[in-house]
């Protein structure tokens, strides 16, 4: 039954993606940005589904099982304020500039705003390098989860292969329109399933109040943030959600909006969406102790799956599996499309065709890159060690620390190419240094102070862009006239 539910779910996603192909207009802008026609609801679902990964369901419940309720403040409520604020202040403005100048990627924006081909190329390399671990985590995590949910019936490599094949089919066929529609369906699936799973399991546990009382009696430390999340860690962690301002896939979805008004719903509803997904994960993670009190190590990340196996029928396990697939695929599709877009526009079209590439050639190149990146990701996932999962927070930190480059580009006329170069290089050097000393320690903070590396990188990035800009020549009047009104 579990397998049947999973197959039915994948069939639905595939059908949605393939139907979207009938609306394809045959141009590069349509393939990569759906000709900028995405409305408020689909934009909200696309942004949220792309941002949320399987961690929101499984990792969050595992962290809650291990450290208690503090994980909600650390990772969820901070994002509930920071992410919509970034969409409001950054996303809307980049959309306007992107539409005015016909931009298709963020590298095109930075290259033009900072008047530098070299900076564009450097950013291309850094942005793609940071998204690679993110892609691998999705494919590997999805495959491993399917193995657990199906009791070993689906080996990890088969799960990863099926997921990759389905994403490849609907992204190559439907481009961003197919991705956005499939994301909308998938986001609704994992939001609804979180609530259904919570309601069902709470009923089986005898209600929220009694279950919490039992866990609190045995583990009072899980009912408070306490020392599990010290104040400096909580404070510095609020910088990590700033990463949405530099994710290539989020940028791509911003550019796809039909109008500025399309951003209003995502800005307002984002905090509520985060609450809907994360509250069930965190509550069920803590309540996991009521059923299993002896999970240790990596096993804690499967607490939600174990709860369902123990308390729920097959069909709910299948639905949870569908929810995990939804979370993984709704991120994976946008990431590979964004990378395919960047390879096509920023490398092949810009350097190979001097920006004169035909529409059909763009679409063909985009499809080839999407297929190639997915295939490469899948092959790498077969040989990559599972410790790569710890790279997620490092990937997010790198993107967040690059945000000052975008903020300066949008809000500070005096910011220059030299400032942007200084910030990118500073972040890259600090990232490599911090990773070399703390990459193997999931609890690493700077000097054991509780301060996350992202805080140091972010402040250094601001300093670099300011100093680098002030000591260099201001941008040309033509550029300022183009990007500031």
């Amino acid at each position: 039954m579990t397998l049947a539910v999973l197959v039915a779910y994948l069939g639905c996603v595939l059908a949605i993606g393939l139907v979207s192909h009938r609306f394809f207009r045959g141009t590069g802008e349509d393939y990569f940005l759906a000709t900028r026609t995405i409305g408020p609801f689909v934009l909200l679902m696309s942004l949220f589904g792309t941002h949320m990964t399987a961690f929101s369901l499984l990792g969050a419940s595992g962290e809650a099982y291990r450290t208690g309720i503090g994980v909600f403040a650390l990772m969820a409520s901070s994002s509930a304020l920071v992410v919509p604020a970034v969409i409001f202040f950054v996303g809307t403005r980049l959309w306007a500039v992107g539409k005015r100048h016909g931009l298709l990627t963020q590298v095109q924006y930075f290259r033009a705003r900072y008047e530098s081909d070299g900076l564009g190329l450097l950013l291309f390399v850094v942005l793609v390098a940071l998204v690679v671990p993110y892609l691998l985590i999705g494919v590997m995590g999805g495959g491993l989860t399917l193995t657990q949910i199906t009791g070993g019936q689906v080996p990890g490599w088969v799960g990863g292969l099926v997921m990759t094949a389905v994403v490849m089919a609907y992204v190559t066929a439907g481009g961003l329109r197919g991705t956005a529609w499939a994301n909308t369906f998938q986001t609704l699936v994992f939001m609804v399933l979180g609530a259904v799973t919570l309601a069902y399991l709470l009923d089986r546990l005898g209600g929220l109040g009694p279950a919490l009382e039992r866990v609190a009696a045995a583990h009072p430390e899980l009912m408070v943030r306490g020392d599990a999340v010290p104040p400096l860690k909580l404070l510095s962690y609020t910088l990590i959600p700033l990463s949405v301002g530099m994710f290539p896939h989020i940028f791509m979805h911003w550019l796809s909006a039909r109008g500025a008004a399309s951003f209003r719903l995502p800005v307002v509803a984002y905090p509520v969406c985060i609450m809907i997904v994360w509250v069930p994960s965190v509550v069920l993670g803590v309540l996991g102790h009521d059923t299993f009190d002896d999970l240790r190590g990596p096993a804690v990340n499967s607490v939600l799956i174990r709860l369902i196996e123990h308390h729920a029928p097959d069909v709910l396990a299948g639905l949870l599996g569908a929810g995990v697939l939804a979370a993984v695929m709704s991120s994976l599709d946008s990431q590979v499309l964004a990378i395919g877009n960047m390879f096509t526009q920023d490398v092949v079209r810009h350097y190979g065709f001097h920006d004169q590439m035909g529409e059909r050639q763009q679409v063909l190149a985009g499809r080839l890159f999407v297929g190639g990146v997915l295939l490469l990701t899948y092959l790498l996932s077969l040989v990559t060690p599972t410790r790569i999962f710890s790279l997620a927070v490092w990937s997010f930190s790198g993107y967040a620390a690059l945000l000052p480059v975008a903020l300066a580009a949008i809000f500070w006329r005096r910011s220059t190419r030299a400032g942007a170069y200084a910030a990118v290089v500073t972040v890259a050097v600090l990232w490599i240094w911090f990773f070399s000393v703390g990459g193997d320690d999931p609890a690493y903070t700077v000097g054991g102070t509780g301060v996350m590396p992202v805080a140091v990188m972010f402040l250094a990035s601001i300093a670099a862009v300011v100093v680098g800009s002030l000591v260099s020549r201001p941008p040309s009047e033509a550029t300022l006239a183009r990007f500031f009104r």
Partner: protein
Amino acid sequence: MTAGRAVRVALYGALAALYALHQDAWFRHDPRIVLGLPVGLAYHVAYCVAASLLMALLVKLAWPAGLETDGDAP
């Protein structure tokens, strides 16, 4: 300062205040149950609702000027 600008500044101030309120030192070691949840969790659930309300005010009263015309221009 015009009324519109004053509202905008007030909302940006509210945003900064809400950011500061994320640091809930006052509930850090408090195990009470409020609205069926540990108070430290209930606070942050309410925080999400407050964030949504503030975003609604920002969208309604402090929407960036010129975006629609900029973006929709041919």
